[in-house]
């Protein structure tokens, strides 16, 4: 746990980093970005939190089974959307032209419309949840392993 100035500034900056990461995930079909990139930005915010507040303080509130639940639900969303268009082929884009996320943008340069893209924004959310939980789990477990010095197994 670092000094009071570092903890205060980290508490002010971390919500902005989280909002930026979620923005990059959700607008993956209009601007450069997507699930993997936004998950990396979000995980770097979690890394700042762990460095400023110490891994024991974070481990009291964020256990491994919360992260495991988040990661598994992300993967299940991704595979469930792959099975949604199984009538034609695996991973078929079955939402283009229908009601949810089904607009088609005009060809050429255009200001983007967020309700386009078919099944791609929902897949971005699934992969984003998976990458957030996976990278946070790696960071938390490695930070915990270097502080506790008891000999195991």
């Amino acid at each position, binding site marked *: 746990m670092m000094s009071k100035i570092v903890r205060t500034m980290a508490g002010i900056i971390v919500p902005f980093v989280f909002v930026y990461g979620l923005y990059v995930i959700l607008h993956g079909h*209009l*601007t*450069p970005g*997507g699930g*993997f990139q936004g998950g990396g930005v979000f995980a770097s915010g979690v890394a700042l939190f762990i460095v400023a507040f110490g891994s024991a303080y974070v481990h009291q509130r964020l256990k491994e089974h919360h992260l495991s639940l988040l990661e598994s639900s992300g993967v299940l969303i991704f595979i469930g959307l792959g099975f949604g268009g199984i009538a034609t082929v695996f991973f078929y884009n079955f939402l283009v032209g229908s009601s949810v996320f089904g607009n088609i*943008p005009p060809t*050429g*340069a*255009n*200001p*983007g419309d967020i309700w386009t893209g078919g099944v791609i924004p929902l897949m971005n959310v699934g992969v984003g949840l998976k*990458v957030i939980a996976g*990278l946070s789990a*790696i960071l938390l477990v*490695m930070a915990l*392993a*270097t502080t506790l010095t008891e000999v195991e197994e």
Partner: protein
Amino acid sequence: MTGNIPFNIPFVAVAILISISLFIMVTQRNLIKVVMGLSIMASGVNLFLITLGYREGGVAPIYTHAPGQLMVLPVPQALTLTSIVIAVATLALMLSMIVRIYRSTGSVDSEKSRMLKG
């Protein structure tokens, strides 16, 4: 940046990067230096994939407020994205194994942890 770039300078830079990392991985004894060499080789391969798909005078292949008509190829960029994520995953696993090796043998020298002991 139009004009003829002589002798394929980006591809020669990729070849030099991969050969430097290969030299590091073969000759060094410290395990952490070997992992650093592997990370440099991953960066070299990602650079090669991106420079394969460059068209002169092209812009990013995104249609939102697109400034030009000519776009670079999108498929190598998608493959590079996958490669970066795989490099991060293998780097995390390798560093965890190095921590366990250090705890059980007491040093990160690769010559001291060769024989399988009981």
